């Protein structure tokens, strides 16, 4: 199945502005990001030593923000759009 990943600011510089990811079998948002980080060498940027996403990182699935738990137990479907934000610094 195909997932679109969009990212911003420092994460855009890691992942690119928008990319299409092919996954096989069941995949959660956390699994997709974890696999990508291994490839890009950015595991420490997104994940704590315990392997959870840093609390100030926001993951949005098809326009809805996910809780930490949801990033681990939501199954992605073909055509989903995943957005990942680094900590915000506006205002």
């Amino acid at each position, binding site marked *: 199945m195909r997932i679109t990943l969009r990212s911003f600011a420092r994460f*855009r510089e890691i992942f690119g502005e928008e990319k299409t990811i092919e996954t096989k079998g069941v995949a959660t948002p956390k699994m997709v990001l974890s696999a990508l980080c291994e490839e890009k060498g950015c595991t420490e940027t997104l994940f704590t030593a315990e392997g959870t996403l840093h609390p100030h990182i926001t993951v949005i699935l098809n326009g809805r923000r996910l809780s930490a738990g949801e990033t681990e137990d939501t199954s992605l479907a073909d055509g989903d759009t995943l957005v990942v934000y680094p900590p915000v610094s*506006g205002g």
Partner: protein
Amino acid sequence: MISIQKEDIDIGALIQQSRDKRMGAQVVFVGTVRDDGDSIEAIEFEADRTTAIADLRTIAAEATEKYGLISVDIIHRDGLLQMGETILVIIAGSAHREEGFAGCRYIIEEIKRYVPIWKKDINTTGDSHWHD
């Protein structure tokens, strides 16, 4: 008015537009690019405009409900801003000053907490780095 824009903000015109005869107070927050003594010469702002605008609308509605505001305006700029330029203007209009101050403060704190806008310092040396 809720907006994210590259263009500068005419603060005087915005204050005038937002005025209503039921209003006794307008509390305005203006954020500007500050020279903090480092070698920063400009700041680049990036926003996820679609989500940011939706979030700003949510925050404006919450502030209106929570503090009984009469009007809320929020304009945040993106793109490259030089030292001294306006980043952000918030106007909370209310019958009395207490609600205006509380509402305006609520809005800026919520924006800082989660609205998807990021800033990158641009140094005089040509280096740049994203804020945490």
